[in-house]
């Protein structure tokens, strides 16, 4: 199997409402990633696009619509879609474009423009349910995640403040991020715990915001890295894994994300990692809700079941802690333009591993990182392990 490296990354501002069109956002992220990789669009053999529901932008076949902004015109162009998992999954698809030998340089572009969906993108989520069993109940995402959070807290006896601490940490971490939408250097645990109750036990500050934005990464084969002298700015993809659970979310115990665990095991096997907590230096798990960071740390095998909250309480997951988690500021701090969270996940691993994270740089030396995204109906996990 050919080795594949990330050699450049870019992302736009994340904001509740950006003036640019989706094509323009894609173009900006693409331009930044190509500049960082010292390449032009002519150097790219294939483009992989990630974007979540078509209904956000309100365009059928949204991947086709966005392709010229993403540099896909007259190229092999592939859109992959795994719901919220797309944020990390498109890089996995990019990985097999290069690892298979069909492309030497692949450009991965993810875009999301949720503000086009009026009055609020939550209305799209009315149409993600089984039309017979679920939809008549008029569920929305906040309340099903409230069920999952409640189950997770109840099974392990986790106090709410252990969960709310994650929101405080990530919103503070985001202060160093130039794209951040909800960074807050002064936020306190009390602010989160006293914020508006949305659907018990979920409060407003437990949730990441809807956002517009785009992000891109450039992947290259080992040959290209050598020929173009990019070794100093290359972070290697060591392992990839992905897994989907049943559509019937009501039929599984929500306290543990088995699908994330299986995706992680697949990625660790390829990366030859046997004890993840020891061999991995930091993590960027998907954190659209604060409890999800903890849930995912357990799914990734980085914390024992029910114990991830203790890691936050003890400061282990702070940027200067023993095991930094979401040093980017995550979705909670920087924003959640679904697929474009690529820039916070794969992008942050890349910037941290190549020492380009600026104010967010983890003070301890880091050699190996893991990132993960989560999607569909509490159902999809995908994992990428990268090394310097």
């Amino acid at each position: 199997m050919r080795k594949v490296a990330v050699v450049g990354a870019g992302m736009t501002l994340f904001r509740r409402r950006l003036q640019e069109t989706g094509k323009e956002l894609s173009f900006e992220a693409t331009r930044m990633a190509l500049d960082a990789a010292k390449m032009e669009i002519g150097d790219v053999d294939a483009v992989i696009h990630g974007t979540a529901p078509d209904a956000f932008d309100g365009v059928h076949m949204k991947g086709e619509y966005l392709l010229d902004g993403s540099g896909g015109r007259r190229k092999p162009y592939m859109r992959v879609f795994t719901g919220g998992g797309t944020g990390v999954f498109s890089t996995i698809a990019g990985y097999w474009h290069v690892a298979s030998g069909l492309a030497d340089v692949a450009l991965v572009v993810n875009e999301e423009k949720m503000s086009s969906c009026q009055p609020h993108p939550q209305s799209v989520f009315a149409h993600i349910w089984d039309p017979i069993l679920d939809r008549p109940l008029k569920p929305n995402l906040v309340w099903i995640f409230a069920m999952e959070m409640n189950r997770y807290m109840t099974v392990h006896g986790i106090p709410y403040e252990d969960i709310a601490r994650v929101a405080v940490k990530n919103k503070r971490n985001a202060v160093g991020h130039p794209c951040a939408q909800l960074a807050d250097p002064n936020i306190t645990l009390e602010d989160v715990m006293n914020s508006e109750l949305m659907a018990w036990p979920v409060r407003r500050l437990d949730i990441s915001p809807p956002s517009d934005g785009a992000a891109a990464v450039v992947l290259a084969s080992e040959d290209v890295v050598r020929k173009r002298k990019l070794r100093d700015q290359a972070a290697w993809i060591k392992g990839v894994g992905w897994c989907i659970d049943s559509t019937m979310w009501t039929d599984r115990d929500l306290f543990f994300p088995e699908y994330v665990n299986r995706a992680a095991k697949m990625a660790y096997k390829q990366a030859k990692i046997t004890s993840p907590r020891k061999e991995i230096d930091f993590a960027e798990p998907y954190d659209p809700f604060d409890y999800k960071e903890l849930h995912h740390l357990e799914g990734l095998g980085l914390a024992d079941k029910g114990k991830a909250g203790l890691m936050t309480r003890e400061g282990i997951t702070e940027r200067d802690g023993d095991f930094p988690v979401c040093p980017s500021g995550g979705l909670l701090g920087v924003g959640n333009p679904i697929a474009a969270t690529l820039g916070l996940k794969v992008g942050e691993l890349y910037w941290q591993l190549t020492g380009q994270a600026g104010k967010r740089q983890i003070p301890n030396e880091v050699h190996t990182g893991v990132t993960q995204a989560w999607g569909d109906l509490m159902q999809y996990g995908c994992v990428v392990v990268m090394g310097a």
Partner: protein
Amino acid sequence: MKVGIVGVGITPFRPSTPEFSWKELMYDGAQRAYADAGIDPRTDVDSFITCAEDYYEGFGIFDEFTPDQLGAVLRPMHTVGGDGIQGLANAYMQIQSGLAEVVVVESHSKASDILTFNGIVAHGLDPIWNKPLGGHPNYIAGLEMDAFLRGSGNTAKDCAHIAAGNRQAALLNSAAAYGARVTPEQVTASPALWAPLRSLDASVPADGCVVLVLAGEKAAHKMEAPPVWIQGIGWASDSPSLETREWVSPQYARLAAAMAYRLAKVRAPAGAFDLAEVDDKFSYKELQHLEALGLAKRGQSGKMARRGDLDGNGRLPTNVSGGSLGCGNVLDASGLHRAAEAALQIRGDAGKHQVDGAKRAVVQSWRGLPTATGAVAILGASG
């Protein structure tokens, strides 16, 4: 590493399928493919891929609804927002890169569930420049047909020949939805709804599901069905904007073919294949694609059709399955259906429309209006 198609499942295409949900249709296609390959999806498959679009399916996130009916629960699986041959390309790359040995690719159409098909197609147009113009979206095909006929020298009569011939051919295909005795004169007499495009020049949607099982060389030899090898695969997109794409000679088809030919080491495509399955969602598209793929000289594809070169016993049997005009437009399953048909032909399992001695085939897809995206695969009895 060689990658082969080792299992084929095609449900019969129908104008509507009230007795099956889309989920049951997927199950039906999958169990046919698994039986053909002799595999249990729960233990013998490493990765699953489905090719689908949210708006066609009527869901906010269709990816959620894919695993159960394919036996893919708690397994690697993902959706491609693309055509079935693009799905095959992902499977091909997963196997080539060593991530998987056996991969399942699924695509289906439950077009009969779509109440406003043309509205959805129009919803794929640029929301600022094009969609506000309104009208039935087939007007774009009418404009393109006009540009193609003027630019290439083919005629509307040539197109009528394709529209009639493919529907006739479909009479021999038990899986086709729209086989009929139609003459070129009847096509020419049908209303020119989007002049010069006439109503019988256009395919109509059908329901159906196609599932293929792919395997790397080692695993392929353990399967029950004989492997049909993917010798080359390619895909490409031209500009999504109507104003800046190439209208006479489709660049997506030319570029996708160039990529597939490069991998398959095909230098002179015109004489390289025993069989072609090329997209014919509109009659002129078959001619346009034959020329873009280098299977006909520019302006000569129409003559080939009239000479009988494209018939089952002709020089290059093309769309002997009946194509989209005869089988029905199964949306993003159309390309996967072409690959499935070619695989059955190469195995000698195509039934009444079997082409004698078919050993190597080229298949090509176009994603339909309003896209400029397509893919090409070269299949053969030998690697």
